């Protein structure tokens, strides 16, 4: 097993986790707060599907 392969994979995973956390911590611009909902397709497994947001609204009440 090539040692560089492990190092390279670890680096890529670290970069992905870093960019993901960095993106999540970046505040949404004004007027874009409720943009995570999408009704483009019927894939209910997608976190952007409106069904997930309906649950969030119910939880709030």
């Amino acid at each position, binding site marked *: 097993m*090539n040692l560089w*392969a492990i190092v*390279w994979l670890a680096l*890529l995973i670290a970069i*992905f986790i870093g960019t993901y956390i960095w993106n999540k911590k970046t505040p949404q*611009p004004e007027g*874009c707060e409720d943009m995570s909902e*999408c009704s483009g*397709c019927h894939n209910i497994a997608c976190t952007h599907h409106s069904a997930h947001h309906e649950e969030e609204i119910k939880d709030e009440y």
Partner: protein
Amino acid sequence: MELVSLFIGLTFVNNVVLSKFYAVCPLLGVSKKPKNALNMGYAVTFVIVIASIVTHILYHFVLVPLEITYLDLITFILVIASLVQFVEMFLKKTSPEIYKSMGVYLPLITTNCAVLGVALDNISANYNLIEATVAGLAVSVGFTIVIYLFATIRERLEIANVPESFKGTPIALITAGIMACALAGIAGLV
């Protein structure tokens, strides 16, 4: 001239959506309204062009020298996912207007197989950096044209008298098939 024929070939003749069936998921899912289809097209163009350049550089300057080219698939997946996160964060900070227009479609590009397909095709076709960039641009322009045309056709189909059993996805797939036949008709162009 070769770059022009490469561009026309990948945009129209060998359109990845209608000839290789890449990105059929967004084609069917995000083509209900022409405006949404165009926004998706812009976002895909942005990401595919950048991904083509980045993956080409990483493959030839990291994977090949380290003799780990067998990791190209996992590398490209992680690079594209990271790139989408970075682009989203960058747009949030610098261009809220562009971020707003792309909306939720930007993070959804991570799962668009056309982005990964173009990166892998560029490597297998042994393109240089300029050719890979032109190929990325051509594929994404082709995707944008197809998804926009498809959305306008679907909009008209909403008010058409379609038999009950063909409504929705069946008539959309038949439409995609007819579009593929139409594009195959210009195969002799390049």
